[in-house]
């Protein structure tokens, strides 16, 4: 329980969780419970991290490849440090998605790290990007923000931290491609509303708060429409070169 948690907000989040996802997910859940198939004749539970991570895949898709509903993010192939930080952020109340908090609450640092490492090592194929529905002007505005930022307002380009190819920077910074527009928009909303935080200084909270909603929409629309390059992997680069101080790149 968090001191500032608001029951109605929690209820709303949870309601969203259940209702937005109701249809696509039902097609995913069966058949994935026992990783090593051979279902009914199963005589022992596989002693693997994959089998232990099955609970995650009900929403995040097989191997963490994401569902097609546009709400649950892909977790496969994201940098291990990023995934681990998010799991801990949920457990420690910095991120407040009720069902995620509930899932990770009883788990230890070591086990969360193991789960994070597992999904970081998964590389299932990406689906083709969502067709862009935004106007060409909006998409261009988004492209400029992502590639160049807005120096006059101190807003760095996304590529400055998330990698020139936007496939992330190991081990702490996630890629931005292959994510649905709804998910990206929801994260900006969560940063602005305080339900997604990271270790201080929370750089993304600052960036999200200084963007207008039009700009958020433009950036999300453009990002969601980009194809993911073949064999996309997070770049490795010196962390010191970031344009702003970011607590999450130090968090362990």
């Amino acid at each position, binding site marked *: 329980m968090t*001191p500032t948690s608001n029951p109605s907000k929690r209820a709303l989040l949870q309601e969203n969780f259940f209702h937005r996802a109701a249809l696509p997910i039902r097609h995913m859940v069966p058949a994935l419970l026992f990783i090593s198939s051979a279902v009914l004749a199963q005589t022992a539970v596989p002693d693997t991290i994959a089998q232990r991570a099955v*609970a995650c895949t009900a929403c995040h898709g097989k191997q963490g490849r994401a569902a097609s509903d546009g709400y649950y993010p892909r977790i496969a192939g994201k940098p291990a440090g990023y995934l681990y930080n998010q799991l801990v952020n949920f457990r420690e109340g910095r991120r407040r998605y009720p069902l995620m908090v509930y899932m990770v609450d*009883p788990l230890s640092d070591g*086990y969360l790290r193991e789960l994070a490492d597992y999904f970081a090592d998964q590389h299932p194929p990406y689906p083709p990007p969502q067709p862009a529905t935004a106007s060409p002007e909006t998409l261009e505005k988004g492209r400029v923000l992502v590639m160049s930022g807005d120096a006059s307002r101190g807003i760095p380009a996304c590529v400055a931290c998330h990698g020139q190819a936007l496939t992330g920077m190991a081990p702490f910074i996630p890629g931005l491609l292959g994510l649905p527009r709804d998910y990206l928009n929801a994260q900006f909303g969560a940063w602005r509303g305080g339900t997604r935080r990271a270790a201080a200084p929370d750089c993304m909270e600052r960036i999200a708060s200084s963007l207008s909603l039009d700009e958020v929409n433009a950036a999300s629309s453009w990002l969601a429409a980009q194809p993911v390059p073949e064999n996309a992997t997070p770049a490795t680069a010196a962390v010191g070169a970031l344009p702003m101080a970011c607590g999450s790149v130090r968090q362990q």
Partner: protein
Amino acid sequence: MMRRMLWSLTAIVVLLLAGTIAWQRFYDPDADAPSAPRTDEQAQIARGLYLARAANCMACHTARGGQPYAGGRIIATPFGNLVSPNITPDAATGIGSWSAADFWRAMHNGKSKDGSFLYPAFPYPNYTKITRADSDDLYAYLRTIAPAKRPNEAHALRFPYNQRIVLAFWRALYFRPGVYRDDPSRTAEWNRGAYLVQGAGHCSACHTGRNALGATVADADLAGGTIPMLDWYASPLTSDAVAGLGDWSIPDIAALLKTGVSPRGTVFGPMTDVVKGSLEHLSDEDAKAMASYLKSLPKTASSEVEGSLPRPEDEVLKLGASLYRQYCVECHKENGTGFPPAYPRLAGNGAIESGPAINAIRIVLNGGYPPATSGNPRPYGMPPFGPALNDAEVAAVVSYMRNAWGGRAPLVSPAEVISYRTVPLE
């Protein structure tokens, strides 16, 4: 004549009320209980840490992500919200200025340093069973934790519950201070278990039903109860065959307490926190002692099942059976025997087959992991099925499980399911 009688009556009532307040305010039983002589400070602190875990002080006195013991966690009650206080040794905002005697009075008699009544969300009706020596050990440990400067927040209770003075009457009705007394007819192990269960472990805080004034119902001790505000059902710990621990072995109970899993069942809901924060840290001997004591609790009067029982050919059960085969069999098997300890057995599992359907509904909706403990560091988990199944389907599969393997329970309605979709998860 009439007027004089009325005056006398009023005077008597006022005197009784004032007398009750004065009695509760000024009577401090065992205030002079001798402090144990301090010999080995490090050993005392280590014992205090052990007790702090056995009493799970941290669970309430630490906010999610907050500094340990610095308080700030909201405890929702039917009377409003309480905010747990800072019990770090910070002099200004914590209990740094408290003496061991002040601490003892809080534990034993439910009063703050200034003598005001503490709200019984702080389970002093249980902690009063703790000995002075153990209270002093706990105090010694709490002196060693990092002081946190975090001022206490005001509780948000409704009138009249926000008036601490009315607790005098609650205490007069429901609170009897007194350290646990060994029962000489029982073994040392049994007495140790009783001391832990009734005292530090404060099991009755959840596992005993509460009356309208929030007091645990004495004659239904550990017979199970719905936990106010959390909306989970705490199973009976009495010796009832399916609902309670009647057909559990002592090693299985001890395993559940220490590791969160056992051949008979797996902890879920709020009990995961209790295992992770508290019971996991017990010694094997203490876990076994608690299990032995629990096994000795008598059966409770079997409660009649409310509502009519379904017939096997009921359409809802048929739908439930087909959903069970589609979603559940891989881990829990067709016959409900599961793969314990990885995936619990459902057949003959009290949490599923008996009591209110709350637990089964919420587990189907939200899934979850048992706690990662030293005895089970990499638990297997259950996916949330709330997104995949609609209310009627959850109701059907729960109804099926409650009737499939020898259990008999009324059908669950879809309306019951929807009420748990939006219940707060923490």
